[in-house]
């Protein structure tokens, strides 16, 4: 076991796969010589050289188009889109091309491509550089979507994404890049589509993702210690495929579901999970389903405003205290 930061785990995951398979290539803006604007890819250019780690112009459609064409013809590209907000400038390639090509050709084409992108708030970058948009990708059939919360998951899920033959979007939480955690030594390969139960409780089941997992754990701690409310915490990790088996089982046990979502409310992943629970284990529910999300608005930039917009530990504690007995 070594302690790595989340950003180091990104580089470690990519490096592990590039060492294993010469067909894995990596492209994006400032990812090479500069090591990435979040320093999440430091060392890759030095180790693998400019043939496999390629800096690109500011041409996101070309970046993802090139990754797609390469994936269809034998390579396994990893493409970086610097901020997830920028997926909007190349959304056609993601949502209409990569996601649909295999289906439209009835399986003639395989699309082993990985898109990594820095997602989420907390850096005071304002509304165009802070969005949590994993639900944009979840809404598009043909895309797999992961959002790790811990360095070990980062490494293992990136490796799994690279080995997966379908398009996978990896949403890295930019305010977690400095977070440190234990990562097993040697080859680490995780599995897509598996949620993790991080804490077991009796009163309600909190389902969270990425940064919100950390806040959910902190809130659960306070709820337990200070208010005698005992919560299960599930880290969803993978939105597509979605581990409904784990989620449904954990919600059924406590009878209550609370989702903690960084996305603005409407059509978030939590809505999808809420609708599955309200259909499939309705009779196991002991009370309303609660969604704690960022309000449905663009994010403000100033630190004080931003901190009061995305779900905080205090808000999670308060809302659960008020609504779960």
């Amino acid at each position: 076991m070594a302690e790595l930061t989340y950003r180091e785990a990104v580089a470690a995951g990519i490096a592990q796969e590039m060492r294993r398979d010469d067909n894995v290539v990596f492209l994006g803006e400032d990812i090479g010589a500069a090591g990435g604007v979040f320093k999440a890819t430091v060392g890759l250019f030095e180790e693998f050289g400019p043939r496999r780690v390629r800096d690109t112009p500011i041409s996101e459609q070309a970046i993802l188009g090139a990754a797609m064409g390469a994936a269809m013809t034998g390579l396994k590209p990893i493409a970086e889109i610097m901020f997830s907000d920028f997926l909007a400038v190349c959304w056609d390639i993601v949502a209409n091309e990569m996601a649909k090509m295999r289906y439209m050709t009835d399986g003639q084409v395989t699309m082993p491509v990985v898109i990594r992108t820095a997602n989420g708030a907390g850096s005071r970058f304002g509304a165009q550089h802070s969005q949590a948009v994993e639900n944009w990708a979840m809404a598009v059939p043909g895309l797999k979507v992961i959002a790790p919360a811990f360095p070990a998951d980062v490494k293992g899920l990136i490796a799994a994404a690279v080995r997966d033959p379908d398009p996978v979007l990896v949403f890295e939480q930019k305010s977690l890049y400095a977070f440190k955690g234990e990562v097993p030594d040697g080859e680490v390969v995780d599995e897509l589509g598996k949620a993790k139960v991080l804490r077991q409780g009796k009163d309600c089941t909190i389902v969270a993702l990425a940064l919100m997992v950390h806040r959910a754990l902190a809130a659960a701690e306070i709820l337990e210690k200070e208010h005698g409310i005992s919560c299960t915490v599930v880290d969803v990790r993978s939105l597509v495929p979605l581990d409904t088996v784990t989620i449904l089982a954990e919600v059924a046990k406590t009878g209550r579901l609370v989702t903690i979502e960084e996305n603005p409310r409407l059509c978030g992943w939590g809505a999808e999970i809420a609708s599955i629970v309200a259909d499939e284990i309705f009779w196991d529910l002991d009370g309303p389903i609660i969604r704690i999300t960022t309000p449905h608005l663009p994010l403000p930039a100033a630190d004080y405003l931003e901190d009061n917009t995305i779900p905080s530990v205090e808000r999670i504690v308060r809302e659960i205290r008020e609504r779960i007995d």
Partner: protein
Amino acid sequence: MNQKSKETVALGHDIRLELYKLQLELRYCEKRAYDLFLQNLIKGTSHLSLGQEAIAAGFGVAMRPDDYTFCTYRGHAHTLARGASMEGVLGELMGRECGLLGGKGGSMHLTDVSKGAMGSYAIIGAHLPVAAGAAWSAQYRGTEQVAVCFFGDGTTNIGAFHEALNFSVIWKLPVIFVCENNLYMEYTPIGSVTAVEHPAADRAAAYNLEKVVVDGNDADEVYRTAAKYMARAREGGGPALIECMTYRHSGHSRADPGQYRPPGELDRWLERDPLKIYRERLLGLGIVEATLIDLEGEAMRKVDAATETAKASPAPGLDGIHKNVWADGGAAWRN
């Protein structure tokens, strides 16, 4: 017409007959598609290449079997030109089980990966960067394959065109971008919405590329140009942007009678019908008419046979709906 790449190298009769045969097949098959639409056997939309066959044929004959083709919704001809089965194409248009895509893609998405036909893309511009990616892969793997990407004049005004061109040049990718300038987008003349006369060629310099405009109704000229720039790309000389002047004889899609075109325009272009031109040229070169008539009959029989096979094919099974979202063959998004 500014025909910078006009070459005078003589082509052998074998290649010429191949070019004629292929143009015939493309023409007859497209006409058949139109008939089948009138008979209500083709339900979705379809975009025909009638009048533009010389381009698909010229490139098709010049390409190596392992080269890659990327085309648009107007892609029947380009897909057939790579050797995709005709019943597969007609079957797909009719939504039959024998269709190239099992009925799942339809007219706008014809693909035959086994022949290097890497897909037809229905959203303007998207396939230009994708073709660049296939070229990158060929370069990386050292295979000397070339990617050829077809698109229309209207496509030159969308962002992806610009990104793909710059990207391909700086990475010196073996990709040939082929603009089929048929003077119109759907119903709007390209000249009315473009800042330059030649929407592709007049922009080549913006990517440090040569300006190349060819007569897209002359299969020989297309073939020669294709062969020249593909050879250069194979040797590491990087991309090319080729603008082929042509005209579509029919409307934009099956729903369009083409009434926005000024009177007489179509007639003038019909005089320059690529098949007519080519037949006359072959006769002028001393090929006996019987040979041509044989080829014509052969092509027609091929289209007839393909039509019958496709018509006889059943509707695709409903189980296909849930197949091939993922590489594991299925569509599950949950456990």
